[in-house]
């Protein structure tokens, strides 16, 4: 375990100590693999994924079902460990983090929206949303304000705020999960199919929220199956069978999403870093 003085230092200024490239990337992965063992059977969910994502990026991840998108997101969100490979978050190697440091990182730096929306059953919507703040020891009054703001951004009608989470529809649950991810105003938002259960209108409210957050400098990574959703992002990564098959900048401003030009096939995984570097120039 590291001293808490260390922790605070890390939160304030970015990478200095590590042997990681001090390029100021928010996320840098090298050769991530994930092998699931169930009985004798090995499933290779990730087979060597390398990518970098810079602060302020808006990335969509696409790919067929079972290609390893959720697995990658869990690793990026510090919820699961890779089988091999390196993952630097804000310049720090994640595997060197203590359990408590990981908890701080999940609570303060990252907002995660699960594919299966994990809410506490039999607890109210508001309680679910404020939970990350409860673990931060934030005073009650402040908690309520933030929760209400987050629920508005996620587009959940006020009449549902005091419902128990198991009395909600799939789309409402999804919005609660998004509100919870937004509550700590995290630098990085990871959303696993956040609009999968929503009609286009409510989906749009959420995507608009993401756009606004991105404009304010938040980094957003989302998984989607819909190209219309992916086109709102500035960069699209395609995954197949646990490998990145394309990494393409949507060479347009997202206001012009409808008239997007044909995708340019990006470089192989090893060149991803270079491609990501160009992203800065485009936007």
């Amino acid at each position, binding site marked *: 375990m590291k001293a808490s003085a260390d922790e605070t230092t890390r939160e304030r200024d970015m990478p200095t100590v590590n042997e990681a490239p001090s390029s100021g990337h928010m996320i840098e992965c090298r050769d991530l693999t994930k092998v699931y063992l169930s009985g004798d059977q090995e499933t290779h969910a990730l087979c060597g994924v390398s990518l970098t994502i810079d602060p302020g990026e808006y990335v969509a991840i696409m790919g067929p079902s079972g290609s390893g998108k959720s697995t990658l997101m869990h690793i990026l969100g510090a919820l*699961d460990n890779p089988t091999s490979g390196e993952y630097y978050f804000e310049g720090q190697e994640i595997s060197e983090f203590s359990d408590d440091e990981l908890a701080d990182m999940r609570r303060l730096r990252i907002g995660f929206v699960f594919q299966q929306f994990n809410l506490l*059953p039999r607890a109210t919507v508001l309680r679910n949303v404020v939970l990350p703040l409860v*673990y931060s020891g934030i005073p009650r009054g402040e908690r309520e304000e933030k929760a209400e703001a987050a629920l508005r951004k996620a587009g959940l009608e006020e009449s549902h705020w005091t419902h128990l989470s198991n009395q909600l529809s799939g789309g409402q649950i999804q919005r609660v999960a998004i509100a919870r991810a937004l509550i*700590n105003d995290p630098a990085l938002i990871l959303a696993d199919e956040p609009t999968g259960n929503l009609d286009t209108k409510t989906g749009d409210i959420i995507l608009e929220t993401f756009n606004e957050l991105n404009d304010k400098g938040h980094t957003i990574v989302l998984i989607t199956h819909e190209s219309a959703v992916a086109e709102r992002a500035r960069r699209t990564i395609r995954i197949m069978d646990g490998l990145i098959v394309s990494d393409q900048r949507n060479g347009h401003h997202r206001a012009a999403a409808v008239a997007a030009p044909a995708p340019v096939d990006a470089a192989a995984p090893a060149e991803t870093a270079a491609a990501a570097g160009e992203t800065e120039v485009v936007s």
Partner: protein
Amino acid sequence: MKLSDILEESVIAIGANKVRSGLTVLGIVIGIASVIALTAIGQGSQASITSAIESAGSNLLTVSPGASSSGGVRGAYGGAKTLLLTDAEAISELSLVKAIAPQVTGRYQVIATAGNSNANVIATTAAYETVRNVTMSGGTFITDSDTSSYSKVAVLGSTIATDLFGDPAAGGTDPIGQTIRIKSTKFTIVGVTAAKGGFGPDNADNAIYVPLSTGMRFLAGETTYLSTLSITAVDQKSMDQLQTDITDLLLTRHKISDSTSADFRVMNQADLASTMTSTSRTLTLLLAAIAGISLLVGGIGIMNMMLTTVTERTREIGLRKAIGAKRRDISIQFLVEAVIMTFLSGIIGVVVGWLASMGINHFGGLNSVITVQWVVIAFGLSALIGIVFGFYPARRASGLNPIQALRYE
């Protein structure tokens, strides 16, 4: 995480699954309540036996005529005619004797104006009152002058008084001043004893007391033989010595050289008391064992509840970790939950157990005494079970990474 939040989170979690929490509480309540109620019965019967023995008189020795227990086949004990009034006088000279009350006992038909009965009539002296610890509810006991003047007076036990004259509280006549006929002799009632409690036909509440001289002359038919001698020793620790002294004295007086062929028997109240208390202690332990089994069953119920919900709770732990809870936050929450549950049920269990033993006291006619020691044991054990099985699985689960915990089956 703040204390108020930890408490709130725990209370929400307990309330979120009412069936699980309810069954866990029920298990502990049953365990604790049955331990308390059953041991209370055991302790209560022990206490009533002790008090019954003590109410017979303290530091009491009794001498009965007839064969000693080790003397083989002899005439029926108690019926033999070997104890004389002169023996009683000789014993009263012994230095360790504080008081002595000779008795001649017989069963006679007793007739009063209102009713009749068959009663144990004890002819004795004034000393009997202190030796056998008699308390009066009205009038006086037999006096020395009654004995010396062959007065035809009688003192009634509380039960026989109501049998013959009715309950004074329910419109019966006051027996004092009334006359009764025992074996065709008229006696004037001068006193009624207070109820002592006890069982069987020789129950002191069922006895009638008359002066020794009167009883010997008019009832026993000019007898000179005694039925029993009740003797109080000067103190507790000289009882054994006095027992030996009396035995030696009577052996000499009756000219018997071999103590195994003694024609009398000296009994020590302490011996009786220790036999009775050890019997009732066995009873208490037996009841405690039964209670222990129900505590164990309750405990297994708790374990079962806790372990079957481990899957659900592991997912919950995974979710909490995923949104940034620290291991310590989770451990504390589950510990607080377990403590709240076990203490809540502990308190309910103690109250239920207490009410149950009060009920037994009141309606079951059994004496029951709650002992702090058993309350502590019952409470402590169930708290331990609840906390270990509520907390340990949670602590283990909090060490998993969030996805492992969320995927736990």
